């Protein structure tokens, strides 16, 4: 029955499909119906690919019918953040400047999903060019948090998180540059991972900040996220920054879920002022839980983490000011003002003015400033030095512990409109997630309860060394199992936003 299919995890769907209990066509149809039923309220999707999804599902069913051995994700629906290029489907990056753009090539990750037989059901909403923490910077309207439709689903991968939390797809792909997978996952009560930078491929990911952008998985369970993580990972010769090393055994670690004897460090600096009390209390309980499961807890200091936010808001805008220069109305995308009287520069300037939103403009100008001669050393150059110091903080910390933990984000989901025109307040959402983006190591957010003051989800962040992504899944799975045991059901089952009642 359709409702049941959309409530199943990707792992369970995979098993059912493999056992022939259900067809991919049925699974896909069920999810498309769910999307049709709720997305007018959630607005997770910018484009629903109904026809191509059903066609893909039919192909998978045929291949399975012929006895072809298929991977675990074959026939399972996945939602793709609109920052990944997809042939046959539009790619807008949440921006007017790319409205209607149909790329002539697939991102490597898109290709890997297709090769795995996953069913791409649509492209999800996002903050414009991945800049934001609420999806309110989308040129096409915000997405809404399935827990409370007046709240943001986080950002920039807000559409992907909302889609998963609203049962529109069991899996989604997002990108994390300053926290854009983990923070939405946290405020939507699901799982989201930022893999080791370079652990998969950025080819076909429209660039925001090249040295920080990291594609990653979102799912309702740790195992689901692990399955997707494995399917998209691995070296890509088309991406010079991708790492040629074996994919860490994330699925095995998620199934193993044993943290006894693991050394876990609580980052002292990621707490205190600006952190919602309910977030801190749920986080503290999560730490106690891990201890009760056999982990050894210590407090660790990472003194330069307090400079992570300013360093990030210099490095990312600098790289983006250059990455977004290509949007100039000459070869694709929006073109405004070409009436035969204006020269190329005027048309460029008018197009970019009309095509970019406020946050994008802010960051481009900020980046142009930070790279200007005379300012480079004091701003961009200095930020890169801070980056080195943060990497050293992590190295020192990981010399003492196996993983680090913190809240994923200082607050639960805020209201739509609350921080929309207050950039500084908005940037604070990234406080906990940014250090791992700067250092390039792996980090995950897993649900650890609801904040007592408002009943909204809180995420536990786990951070692991470069290429030790499996440790994330080991710890997250252990926490998830213990919590689910304690609650009697997955956290998401308590989400009231869409149904108005518990199912």
């Amino acid at each position, binding site marked *: 029955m359709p409702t049941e299919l959309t409530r199943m995890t990707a792992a369970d769907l995979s098993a059912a499909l493999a056992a022939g209990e259900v067809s991919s066509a049925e699974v896909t149809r069920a999810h498309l119906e769910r999307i049709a039923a709720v997305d007018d309220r959630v607005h997770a999707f910018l484009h629903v690919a109904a026809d191509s999804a059903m066609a893909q599902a039919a192909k998978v069913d045929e291949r399975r019918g012929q006895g072809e051995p298929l991977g675990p994700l074959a026939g399972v629906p996945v939602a793709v953040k609109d920052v990944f290029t997809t042939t046959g489907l539009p790619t807008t990056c949440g921006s007017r400047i790319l409205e209607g753009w149909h790329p002539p090539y697939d991102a490597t990750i898109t290709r890997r999903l297709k090769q795995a037989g996953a069913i791409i059901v649509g492209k999800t909403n996002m903050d414009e060019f991945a800049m934001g923490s609420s999806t309110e910077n989308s040129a096409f309207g915000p997405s809404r948090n399935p827990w409370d439709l007046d709240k943001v689903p986080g950002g920039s991968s807000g559409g992907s998180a909302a889609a998963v939390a609203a049962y529109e797809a069991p899996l989604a792909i997002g990108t994390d540059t300053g926290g854009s997978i983990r923070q939405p996952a946290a405020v939507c009560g699901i799982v989201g991972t930022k893999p080791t930078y370079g652990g998969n491929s950025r080819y076909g990911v429209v660039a925001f900040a090249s040295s920080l952008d990291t594609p990653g998985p979102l799912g309702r369970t740790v195992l689901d996220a692990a399955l997707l993580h494995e399917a998209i990972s691995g070296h890509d010769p088309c991406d010079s920054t991708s790492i040629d090393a074996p994919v860490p055994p994330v699925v095995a670690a998620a199934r193993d879920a044993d943290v006894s004897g693991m050394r876990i460090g609580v980052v002292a600096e990621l707490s205190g002022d600006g952190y919602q009390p309910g977030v801190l209390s749920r986080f503290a309980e999560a730490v106690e839980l891990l201890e009760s499961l056999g982990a050894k807890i210590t407090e660790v200091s990472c003194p330069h983490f307090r400079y992570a936010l300013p360093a990030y*808001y210099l490095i990312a805008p600098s790289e983006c000011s250059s990455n977004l220069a290509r949007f100039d109305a*000459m070869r*694709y995308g929006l073109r405004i003002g070409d009436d035969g009287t204006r020269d190329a520069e*005027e048309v460029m300037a008018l197009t970019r*003015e009309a095509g970019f939103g406020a946050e994008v403009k802010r960051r481009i100008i900020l980046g142009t*400033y930070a790279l200007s001669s005379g300012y480079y050393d004091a701003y961009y150059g200095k930020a890169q*030095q801070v980056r080195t110091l943060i990497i050293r903080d992590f190295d020192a910390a990981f010399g003492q512990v196996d993983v680090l933990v913190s809240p994923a984000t200082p607050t639960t989901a805020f209201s739509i409109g609350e921080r929309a025109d207050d950039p500084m307040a908005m940037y604070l959402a990234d406080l906990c997630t940014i250090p791992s983006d700067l250092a390039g190591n792996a980090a995950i957010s897993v649900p650890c309860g609801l904040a007592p003051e408002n009943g909204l989800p809180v995420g536990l962040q786990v951070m692991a060394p470069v290429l030790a992504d499996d440790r994330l899944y080991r710890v997250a799975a252990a926490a998830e199992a213990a919590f689910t045991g304690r609650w009697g059901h997955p956290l998401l089952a308590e989400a009231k936003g869409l149904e108005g009642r518990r199912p």
Partner: protein
Amino acid sequence: MSITRDEVAHLARLARIALSDAELDHLAPQLDQIITAVAQVQEVAAEGIPPTSHATGLANVFRDDVPVPCLTPEQALDQAPAVEQQRFKVPRILGED
């Protein structure tokens, strides 16, 4: 004040964004606030600390000098705002390079 309205206007021109006066009025104070905040990085004692431009530590990633199939002209020009003689048609460009 870290940055003036005029400086913001100048940067917008450099970045080829035709900001309206109203936008300038709105963005300039926000940018000033942001720049003041990010200037915090200057507090960090970083004497002798090498900057990190690439976190992975990779070097010498190359490809072989072997042809790979490319796009057809139709594919390349398909999304162009204007095309003439199988080329991208762009408004007049000023100046010499």
